[in-house]
């Protein structure tokens, strides 16, 4: 990992800022005692866990990525809501119109966190559930199989997310 040495401070600061943010959200006040306590605790947590927290810190955060992140949220939520109605329909329907099966897809994402985000997004969206990730292929359980070809399934399941995630995690 080339970033090991040079991003140390960056990574530590990232861990600190995120921990402090979570602390603030939890206590919900701006009392100076709470802030002090949160600062001390976040410093400790960051000191213990910065290694596992992120690989590069905020250093590569560009406005473009941030915009994509914002844009990704509604896309994701829309897919999630669709997914819910889809599953709900299948569950309520007396005959349960499901055609489950297991298919493969390929992804272009390289970083682990990118794959994690993709896998989580796939799990929460229409009729699909990530079962395993190995290299660049993912094993997907699909509740309503429409195609078995890897290219086809990749296009149908993951493309709309990958467009965003590729930018965010590049």
């Amino acid at each position, binding site marked *: 990992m080339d970033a090991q040495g040079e991003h140390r401070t960056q990574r530590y600061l990232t861990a600190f800022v995120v921990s402090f943010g*979570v602390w603030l*959200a*939890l206590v*919900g006040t701006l009392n100076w005692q709470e802030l002090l306590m949160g600062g001390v605790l976040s410093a400790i947590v960051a000191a213990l866990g910065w290694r596992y927290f992120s690989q590069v810190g905020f250093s590569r955060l560009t406005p473009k990525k941030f915009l994509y992140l914002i844009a990704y949220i509604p896309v994701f939520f829309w897919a*999630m*809501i669709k*997914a*819910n109605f889809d*599953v*709900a329909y*299948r*569950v*309520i329907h007396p005959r*349960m119109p*499901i*055609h*489950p*099966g*297991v*298919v*493969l897809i390929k992804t272009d994402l390289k970083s682990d966190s990118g794959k994690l985000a993709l*896998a*989580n997004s796939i*799990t*929460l969206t229409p*009729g*699909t*559930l*990530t*079962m*395993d990730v*190995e*290299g660049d*292929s993912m*094993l997907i*359980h699909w*509740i309503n*199989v429409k195609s*078995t070809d890897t290219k086809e399934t990749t296009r149908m399941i993951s493309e709309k997310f990958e467009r965003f995630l590729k930018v965010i995690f590049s």
Partner: protein
Amino acid sequence: MYIFGQVLIGIGTAFLFLGGLGIFRLPDVYNRLQAGTKCTTLGAFSTILGVGFIHPNWMLKAIVIAVFILLTNPISAHALARASYKSGVKLWDKSVVDRCKEFEECQEIPKEEEG
């Protein structure tokens, strides 16, 4: 605001119920996980946000909980699916396609080449 919160809660609890129904009705582990993760996640998310709308000053904490659920639920679903697949739980017999075998093979090949 209050009404909106109540609507959200109503949708949320309805989905929670459907999630439970799905977990109960669907035929095999993987399908149950589908229902279990999707419906309960959205249901919990929307219920919690609804409560956040009813009490605006609780919103921050509500969002923290909701985000937590959004992050942890797919991970546990994924872990469970993988675990049950590896420990040999069979797919439902009416499943259309099963490419697990293929996947295993494509995992094997590079290892052999290395060796």
